[in-house]
Protein backbone atom coordinates (compact mmCIF):
# COMPACT_ATOMS: atom_id res chain seq x y z
CA UNK A 1 0.00 0.00 0.00
CA UNK A 2 1.03 3.54 -0.73
CA UNK A 3 -0.22 6.82 0.67
CA UNK A 4 -0.45 10.28 -0.80
CA UNK A 5 -0.38 13.56 1.07
CA UNK A 6 -2.27 16.27 -0.82
CA UNK A 7 -1.98 19.91 0.18
CA UNK A 8 -4.60 22.45 -0.91
CA UNK A 9 -3.50 26.09 -1.05
CA UNK A 10 -4.93 29.42 -2.19
CA UNK A 11 -3.30 32.80 -2.73
CA UNK A 12 -4.52 36.38 -2.31
CA UNK A 13 -6.16 36.37 -5.75
CA UNK A 14 -8.10 33.23 -4.85
CA UNK A 15 -6.11 31.11 -7.24
CA UNK A 16 -5.92 27.64 -5.82
CA UNK A 17 -3.28 25.00 -6.16
CA UNK A 18 -3.26 21.37 -5.11
CA UNK A 19 -0.01 19.46 -4.90
CA UNK A 20 0.92 16.11 -3.47
CA UNK A 21 3.66 13.66 -2.69
CA UNK A 22 3.81 9.97 -1.96
CA UNK A 23 4.64 8.40 1.35
CA UNK A 24 4.70 4.92 2.74
CA UNK A 25 1.23 4.04 4.04
CA UNK A 26 0.58 3.79 7.74
CA UNK A 27 -2.45 1.92 9.01
CA UNK A 28 -2.17 3.09 12.58
CA UNK A 29 -3.10 6.75 12.16
CA UNK A 30 -2.74 7.71 15.82
CA UNK A 31 -1.18 11.13 15.93
CA UNK A 32 -1.85 11.72 12.25
CA UNK A 33 -3.47 15.10 12.89
CA UNK A 34 -0.37 16.24 14.79
CA UNK A 35 1.76 15.25 11.81
CA UNK A 36 -0.56 17.10 9.44
CA UNK A 37 -0.09 20.17 11.62
CA UNK A 38 3.70 19.79 11.41
CA UNK A 39 3.45 19.56 7.62
CA UNK A 40 1.24 22.68 7.51
CA UNK A 41 3.56 24.66 9.79
CA UNK A 42 6.68 23.61 7.88
CA UNK A 43 5.17 24.61 4.54
CA UNK A 44 3.73 27.87 5.89
CA UNK A 45 7.22 28.92 6.96
CA UNK A 46 8.41 29.06 3.34
CA UNK A 47 5.20 29.75 1.38
CA UNK A 48 3.03 32.86 1.13
CA UNK A 49 -0.03 30.83 0.17
CA UNK A 50 -2.69 29.80 2.67
CA UNK A 51 -3.00 26.10 3.39
CA UNK A 52 -6.70 25.33 3.44
CA UNK A 53 -6.71 21.56 3.68
CA UNK A 54 -4.41 18.56 3.95
CA UNK A 55 -5.55 15.11 2.90
CA UNK A 56 -3.86 11.80 3.67
CA UNK A 57 -4.95 9.04 1.30
CA UNK A 58 -4.08 5.39 1.68
CA UNK A 59 -4.15 3.68 -1.73
CA UNK A 60 -4.36 0.04 -2.60
CA UNK A 61 -4.06 -0.92 -6.25
CA UNK A 62 -4.97 -4.44 -7.29
CA UNK A 63 -2.08 -5.84 -9.30
CA UNK A 64 -2.85 -6.38 -12.99
CA UNK A 65 -1.97 -10.06 -12.67
CA UNK A 66 -4.48 -10.48 -9.83
CA UNK A 67 -7.39 -8.81 -11.56
CA UNK A 68 -10.16 -11.04 -12.89
CA UNK A 69 -11.44 -10.50 -16.41
CA UNK A 70 -14.33 -8.06 -16.49
CA UNK A 71 -17.77 -9.55 -17.14
CA UNK A 72 -20.06 -8.58 -20.00
CA UNK A 73 -21.63 -5.62 -18.19
CA UNK A 74 -20.53 -2.05 -18.83
CA UNK A 75 -20.12 0.73 -16.29
CA UNK A 76 -22.64 2.92 -18.11
CA UNK A 77 -25.37 0.64 -16.76
CA UNK A 78 -25.36 0.85 -13.00
CA UNK A 79 -27.34 -0.34 -10.03
CA UNK A 80 -28.91 2.46 -8.00
CA UNK A 81 -29.69 1.59 -4.39
CA UNK A 82 -31.78 3.90 -2.24
CA UNK A 83 -32.39 4.19 1.46
CA UNK A 84 -32.88 6.93 4.03
CA UNK A 85 -30.59 8.40 6.64
CA UNK A 86 -31.18 8.99 10.31
CA UNK A 87 -31.82 12.66 9.61
CA UNK A 88 -34.53 11.78 7.07
CA UNK A 89 -32.55 12.59 3.94
CA UNK A 90 -32.21 10.21 1.00
CA UNK A 91 -29.05 8.11 0.64
CA UNK A 92 -28.13 6.60 -2.73
CA UNK A 93 -25.34 4.27 -3.78
CA UNK A 94 -24.45 3.49 -7.39
CA UNK A 95 -22.70 0.23 -8.27
CA UNK A 96 -21.18 0.35 -11.77
CA UNK A 97 -21.79 -2.46 -14.30
CA UNK A 98 -24.61 -4.15 -12.43
CA UNK A 99 -24.87 -7.82 -13.34
CA UNK A 100 -27.62 -9.10 -15.63
CA UNK A 101 -28.42 -11.73 -13.05
CA UNK A 102 -29.29 -9.05 -10.52
CA UNK A 103 -31.91 -7.42 -12.74
CA UNK A 104 -35.52 -8.53 -12.58
CA UNK A 105 -37.41 -9.10 -15.80
CA UNK A 106 -40.30 -6.94 -14.66
CA UNK A 107 -40.20 -3.20 -15.11
CA UNK A 108 -42.23 -0.57 -13.32
CA UNK A 109 -42.90 3.11 -13.79
CA UNK A 110 -39.95 3.62 -11.46
CA UNK A 111 -37.65 1.77 -13.85
CA UNK A 112 -36.10 -1.68 -14.08
CA UNK A 113 -35.75 -3.16 -10.63
CA UNK A 114 -32.94 -5.10 -9.05
CA UNK A 115 -33.43 -8.39 -7.28
CA UNK A 116 -33.94 -8.77 -3.55
CA UNK A 117 -30.60 -10.57 -3.50
CA UNK A 118 -28.89 -7.50 -4.97
CA UNK A 119 -30.48 -5.31 -2.30
CA UNK A 120 -29.35 -7.70 0.43
CA UNK A 121 -25.78 -7.87 -0.90
CA UNK A 122 -25.58 -4.09 -1.29
CA UNK A 123 -26.85 -3.71 2.26
CA UNK A 124 -24.26 -6.11 3.62
CA UNK A 125 -21.56 -4.28 1.65
CA UNK A 126 -22.41 -1.01 3.37
CA UNK A 127 -23.14 -2.66 6.71
CA UNK A 128 -19.48 -3.67 6.91
CA UNK A 129 -18.51 -0.08 7.57
CA UNK A 130 -20.14 2.76 9.56
CA UNK A 131 -21.26 4.66 6.45
CA UNK A 132 -22.59 8.21 6.68
CA UNK A 133 -25.04 9.97 4.42
CA UNK A 134 -23.37 13.30 4.90
CA UNK A 135 -20.95 14.57 7.49
CA UNK A 136 -22.79 13.18 10.49
CA UNK A 137 -25.96 11.27 9.69
CA UNK A 138 -25.82 7.47 9.64
CA UNK A 139 -27.86 5.59 7.04
CA UNK A 140 -30.64 3.08 7.59
CA UNK A 141 -30.30 -0.45 6.27
CA UNK A 142 -31.30 -2.50 4.41
CA UNK A 143 -31.73 -0.51 1.21
CA UNK A 144 -35.39 0.21 0.41
CA UNK A 145 -35.12 -0.43 -3.30
CA UNK A 146 -32.72 -0.92 -6.19
CA UNK A 147 -33.14 -0.02 -9.84
CA UNK A 148 -31.10 0.16 -13.02
CA UNK A 149 -29.79 3.53 -14.23
CA UNK A 150 -27.75 4.48 -17.27
Amino acid at each position, binding site marked *: MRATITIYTTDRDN*NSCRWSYHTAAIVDTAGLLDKMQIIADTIAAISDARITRIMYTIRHVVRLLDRPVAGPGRIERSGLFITTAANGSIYTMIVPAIKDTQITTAGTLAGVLLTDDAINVASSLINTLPVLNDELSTINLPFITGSVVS
Partner: protein
Amino acid sequence: MAMIQDPWYTYTVSFRDRDNNTAGMSFKIATTALVADVTAAFGTTLAGAIAALSDAVVTGWSLSISARENALATAVESSDVERKGSFSFLDASGFPVIVQLPSIKNILVQDGSQAIDLTNVAVLAFVNLFVTGILGIIRPVSQAGVDVTALKSARKVHRSSARG
Protein backbone atom coordinates in the same frame (compact mmCIF):
# COMPACT_ATOMS: atom_id res chain seq x y z
CA MET B 1 -4.30 28.50 13.22
CA ALA B 2 -4.90 24.84 13.55
CA MET B 3 -5.81 21.93 11.36
CA ILE B 4 -9.07 20.26 12.40
CA GLN B 5 -9.75 16.74 11.22
CA ASP B 6 -12.96 16.13 9.23
CA PRO B 7 -15.32 13.78 11.12
CA TRP B 8 -15.35 11.24 8.28
CA TYR B 9 -13.11 9.21 6.00
CA THR B 10 -13.78 9.02 2.28
CA TYR B 11 -13.62 5.48 0.92
CA THR B 12 -13.44 5.13 -2.88
CA VAL B 13 -13.51 1.93 -4.90
CA SER B 14 -12.27 2.11 -8.51
CA PHE B 15 -13.70 -0.03 -11.32
CA ARG B 16 -12.80 -0.87 -14.92
CA ASP B 17 -15.11 -2.57 -17.40
CA ARG B 18 -14.49 -4.68 -20.49
CA ASP B 19 -14.15 -1.60 -22.69
CA ASN B 20 -11.54 -0.12 -20.32
CA ASN B 21 -13.94 2.56 -19.12
CA THR B 22 -13.45 3.47 -15.50
CA ALA B 23 -15.79 4.47 -12.70
CA GLY B 24 -15.67 5.02 -8.97
CA MET B 25 -17.93 4.47 -6.01
CA SER B 26 -17.36 6.61 -2.92
CA PHE B 27 -18.86 6.74 0.53
CA LYS B 28 -18.14 8.54 3.74
CA ILE B 29 -17.25 6.50 6.81
CA ALA B 30 -17.47 7.66 10.39
CA THR B 31 -14.09 8.24 11.99
CA THR B 32 -15.19 6.08 14.88
CA ALA B 33 -14.03 3.18 12.71
CA LEU B 34 -10.43 2.10 13.03
CA VAL B 35 -8.44 2.65 9.86
CA ALA B 36 -6.98 -0.83 10.20
CA ASP B 37 -10.51 -2.29 10.23
CA VAL B 38 -11.53 -0.22 7.22
CA THR B 39 -8.51 -1.27 5.21
CA ALA B 40 -9.07 -4.89 6.16
CA ALA B 41 -12.76 -4.71 5.19
CA PHE B 42 -12.00 -4.75 1.48
CA GLY B 43 -10.39 -8.17 1.54
CA THR B 44 -12.77 -9.68 4.05
CA THR B 45 -16.14 -8.44 2.81
CA LEU B 46 -16.24 -5.69 0.23
CA ALA B 47 -14.47 -7.45 -2.63
CA GLY B 48 -16.84 -10.41 -2.51
CA ALA B 49 -19.96 -8.29 -2.19
CA ILE B 50 -18.94 -6.07 -5.08
CA ALA B 51 -18.12 -9.08 -7.25
CA ALA B 52 -21.62 -10.40 -6.62
CA LEU B 53 -23.17 -7.19 -7.92
CA SER B 54 -20.89 -5.87 -10.63
CA ASP B 55 -19.40 -7.18 -13.87
CA ALA B 56 -16.63 -4.57 -13.69
CA VAL B 57 -13.34 -5.47 -12.03
CA VAL B 58 -12.06 -3.58 -9.03
CA THR B 59 -8.74 -1.93 -9.81
CA GLY B 60 -8.15 -0.48 -6.38
CA TRP B 61 -9.46 1.44 -3.44
CA SER B 62 -8.41 4.43 -1.42
CA LEU B 63 -9.15 5.84 2.00
CA SER B 64 -8.76 9.57 2.56
CA ILE B 65 -8.41 11.33 5.89
CA SER B 66 -8.51 15.10 5.70
CA ALA B 67 -8.03 18.10 7.94
CA ARG B 68 -8.96 21.72 7.31
CA GLU B 69 -7.65 25.02 8.60
CA ASN B 70 -10.11 26.34 11.16
CA ALA B 71 -9.04 29.99 11.15
CA LEU B 72 -8.11 30.90 7.61
CA ALA B 73 -6.19 34.18 7.50
CA THR B 74 -6.04 36.47 4.48
CA ALA B 75 -3.10 35.57 2.28
CA VAL B 76 -0.36 38.21 2.14
CA GLU B 77 -0.16 40.56 -0.85
CA SER B 78 2.90 38.84 -2.30
CA SER B 79 1.25 35.44 -2.46
CA ASP B 80 0.87 33.91 -5.94
CA VAL B 81 0.46 30.18 -6.39
CA GLU B 82 1.95 30.50 -9.89
CA ARG B 83 5.37 31.16 -8.30
CA LYS B 84 6.71 27.78 -7.26
CA GLY B 85 9.59 26.51 -5.26
CA SER B 86 10.67 23.54 -7.35
CA PHE B 87 12.52 21.02 -5.16
CA SER B 88 14.19 18.13 -6.94
CA PHE B 89 14.84 15.20 -4.62
CA LEU B 90 16.36 11.78 -5.23
CA ASP B 91 15.27 8.48 -3.77
CA ALA B 92 17.75 5.89 -2.53
CA SER B 93 17.95 4.45 -6.05
CA GLY B 94 18.71 7.81 -7.62
CA PHE B 95 15.18 8.14 -9.04
CA PRO B 96 14.01 11.80 -9.17
CA VAL B 97 11.10 13.11 -7.09
CA ILE B 98 10.08 16.67 -7.95
CA VAL B 99 7.88 18.71 -5.64
CA GLN B 100 6.59 22.16 -6.56
CA LEU B 101 5.62 24.25 -3.56
CA PRO B 102 3.13 27.04 -4.43
CA SER B 103 3.98 30.67 -3.64
CA ILE B 104 7.51 30.24 -2.37
CA LYS B 105 8.44 33.32 -0.35
CA ASN B 106 10.45 35.80 -2.43
CA ILE B 107 12.86 36.39 0.43
CA LEU B 108 13.99 32.76 0.13
CA VAL B 109 15.09 33.21 -3.48
CA GLN B 110 18.70 34.35 -3.80
CA ASP B 111 19.01 37.69 -5.59
CA GLY B 112 20.45 37.53 -9.09
CA SER B 113 19.42 33.93 -9.58
CA GLN B 114 16.50 31.51 -9.35
CA ALA B 115 18.20 29.48 -6.63
CA ILE B 116 16.46 28.91 -3.31
CA ASP B 117 18.54 29.62 -0.22
CA LEU B 118 19.26 26.17 1.15
CA THR B 119 20.97 27.58 4.24
CA ASN B 120 17.72 29.14 5.48
CA VAL B 121 16.41 27.36 8.58
CA ALA B 122 12.82 27.15 7.30
CA VAL B 123 13.96 25.76 3.95
CA LEU B 124 16.14 23.21 5.73
CA ALA B 125 13.13 22.13 7.80
CA PHE B 126 11.09 21.63 4.61
CA VAL B 127 13.89 19.63 2.99
CA ASN B 128 14.21 17.50 6.11
CA LEU B 129 10.48 16.81 5.94
CA PHE B 130 11.27 14.90 2.76
CA VAL B 131 14.65 13.35 3.41
CA THR B 132 13.95 12.18 6.95
CA GLY B 133 10.13 12.20 7.19
CA ILE B 134 8.14 13.25 10.23
CA LEU B 135 9.26 11.27 13.23
CA GLY B 136 10.22 8.54 10.79
CA ILE B 137 6.57 7.68 10.16
CA ILE B 138 5.20 9.73 7.29
CA ARG B 139 8.13 8.99 5.04
CA PRO B 140 8.08 10.45 1.51
CA VAL B 141 8.80 7.90 -1.20
CA SER B 142 9.20 7.92 -4.98
CA GLN B 143 6.74 6.41 -7.46
CA ALA B 144 8.73 3.22 -7.09
CA GLY B 145 8.08 3.20 -3.34
CA VAL B 146 11.72 3.90 -2.45
CA ASP B 147 12.52 6.34 0.37
CA VAL B 148 13.47 9.89 -0.60
CA THR B 149 16.97 10.40 0.75
CA ALA B 150 18.56 13.50 -0.77
CA LEU B 151 17.93 16.93 -2.24
CA LYS B 152 19.45 17.50 -5.67
CA SER B 153 18.45 21.11 -6.36
CA ALA B 154 15.90 23.80 -5.54
CA ARG B 155 14.91 26.77 -7.67
CA LYS B 156 12.10 29.19 -8.34
CA VAL B 157 9.90 28.51 -11.38
CA HIS B 158 6.61 29.88 -12.66
CA ARG B 159 3.63 27.84 -13.83
CA SER B 160 0.42 29.41 -15.06
CA SER B 161 -2.71 28.68 -13.08
CA ALA B 162 -6.14 28.04 -14.58
CA ARG B 163 -7.00 31.74 -14.24
CA GLY B 164 -3.74 33.36 -15.23
